[in-house]
């Protein structure tokens, strides 16, 4: 690969242009910068969905709705006891009233709510695996005689609309990456045509001296590939800096779904590969553009 970039000095002299002197590397840098951000957003959301989905799909909440706090307490304790004996259940945790109050505190304030509002008792269940609808129905049947006002809610049900929304954002991110790839290709086409126009006379001479289309296109594609790689690396550095800043801010938020928005090592690998992919895209586009233009002359 490095041999590919070792452009012989006489080739560089034949089609001269200083590195980073034209607009091409900078246009590519901006494209790659935006692509890195869009890809990082898509990949991070994928990770977040995965984490939250894995976490919640094997969890369920039992609500015991009973106005009398004493009866509610007894029913909750009996239900928890019964649930612990079931093989489907790995862990049962009866939430203390203080924790329930803390959960609703952001909406209803810090008053002593337990005395004024009949809050349901909550039992957090961790299942040994993702349960089927039939198994949830069986759970409900088991709890009905113990606590007639009980409800069993799979946790995945709460997060489904959020996951759907995040999936939409992922598609948008993918669409943006595709559009940016198209825009990069268009920029390369314009650049290659401009370079061809600038060096028309040189190309004509090389052509008449017996230069093949491949020889001539190689001069351009190598130069454009190198410009694209340099621009891509600049874009990658800029994009990575922004991702790092955002990740610091997200970590500071310390909120469930938002905190799980982070990148795996393989996501970083994909992001790091973006300038390389950009370079290949630029190279192929340049080659096709130059070959297409050369075919028009004899």
């Amino acid at each position, binding site marked *: 690969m490095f041999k590919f970039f070792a452009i012989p000095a006489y080739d560089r002299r034949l089609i001269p242009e200083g590195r980073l002197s034209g607009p091409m590397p900078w246009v590519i840098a901006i494209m790659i910068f935006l692509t890195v951000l869009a890809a990082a957003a898509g990949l991070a959301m994928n990770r977040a969905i995965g984490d939250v989905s894995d976490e919640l799909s094997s969890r369920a909440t039992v609500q015991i709705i009973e106005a009398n706090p004493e009866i509610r307490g007894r029913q909750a304790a009996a239900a928890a006891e019964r649930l612990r004996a079931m093989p489907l259940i790995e862990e049962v945790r009866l939430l203390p009233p203080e924790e329930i109050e803390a959960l609703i505190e952001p909406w209803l304030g810090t008053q002593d709510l337990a005395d004024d509002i009949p809050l349901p008792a909550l039992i957090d269940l961790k299942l040994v695996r993702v349960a089927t609808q039939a198994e949830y129905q069986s759970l409900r049947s088991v709890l009905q005689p113990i606590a007639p006002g009980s409800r069993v809610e799979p946790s995945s049900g709460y997060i489904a609309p959020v996951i759907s929304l995040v999936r939409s954002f992922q598609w948008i991110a993918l669409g943006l990456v595709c559009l940016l790839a198209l825009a990069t290709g268009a920029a390369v086409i314009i650049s290659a045509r401009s370079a061809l126009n600038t060096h028309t*006379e040189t190309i004509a*001479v*090389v*052509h*008449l*001296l*017996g*230069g*093949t289309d491949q020889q001539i296109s190689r001069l351009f594609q190598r130069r454009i590939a190198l410009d694209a790689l340099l621009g891509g690396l600049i874009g990658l550095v800029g994009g990575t800096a922004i991702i790092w800043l955002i990740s610091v801010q997200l970590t500071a938020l310390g909120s469930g779904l938002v905190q799980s928005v982070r990148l795996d090592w393989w996501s970083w690998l994909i992001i790091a590969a973006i300038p390389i992919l950009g370079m290949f895209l630029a190279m192929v586009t340049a080659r096709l553009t130059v070959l297409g233009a050369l075919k028009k002359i*004899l």
Partner: protein
Amino acid sequence: MDEIVRFENVGLRYGAGTETLADLNFTLFPGSFYFLTGASGAGKTSLLKLLYLSQRPSRGVIRLFGEDAVTMPRERLPGFRRRIGVVFQDFRLVPHLSAFDNIALPLRVAGVREKDLEIPVTEMLEWVGLGDRASARPATLSGGEQQRVAIARAVIGRPEILVADEPTGNVDPEMAMRLLQLFEALNTLGTTIVVATHDIHLLSKIPGAQMMRLEKGMLADPTGSLRFPPLSKDQLQ
């Protein structure tokens, strides 16, 4: 090979205008020396363009090195072009390359290794009297010097055919003679030479050279002792 170039009823038309060249029928033989004469606008440069495969004819057949150059696939043309040396009327030197690099260009295009370039290019520079201008760019060379670089570039690859369009137009009589001697030396080595010129005095400088005269795009009978249609060297002897 009996013939190196054969034109049969060749015509060339640019766009929708009248034919620039019409009904050209001639054969060039290997190792011969030809002058192509005619007034300005007679079609000399157009005929040379057909010879060095810069243009396809509008009609007729051109056989080059025994193959049909008109229907030849585009991919094969570079290989044929490398067998033809061209001295362009306007030199067409690459402006940002030194004299050395301009002369080396055909060899590099042909894939000659860098270490094998140095000696022949330097020798060629010496031969055309530009040994001390190897690193000079065309813009810093005089018209005559540029022309010598263009000639050196055309002959460096030892082409089978050398096509030269007014090669002595910008040089003094002494240099013109030296260039003609170079062409003659190449011709002696077997290269077929076609020189387009309107300098009638040149024609007498090469014994055995033949003349083709173009008039309004058509070959005409030459005047004087030179023959038409061209004959092979054997026929001449």
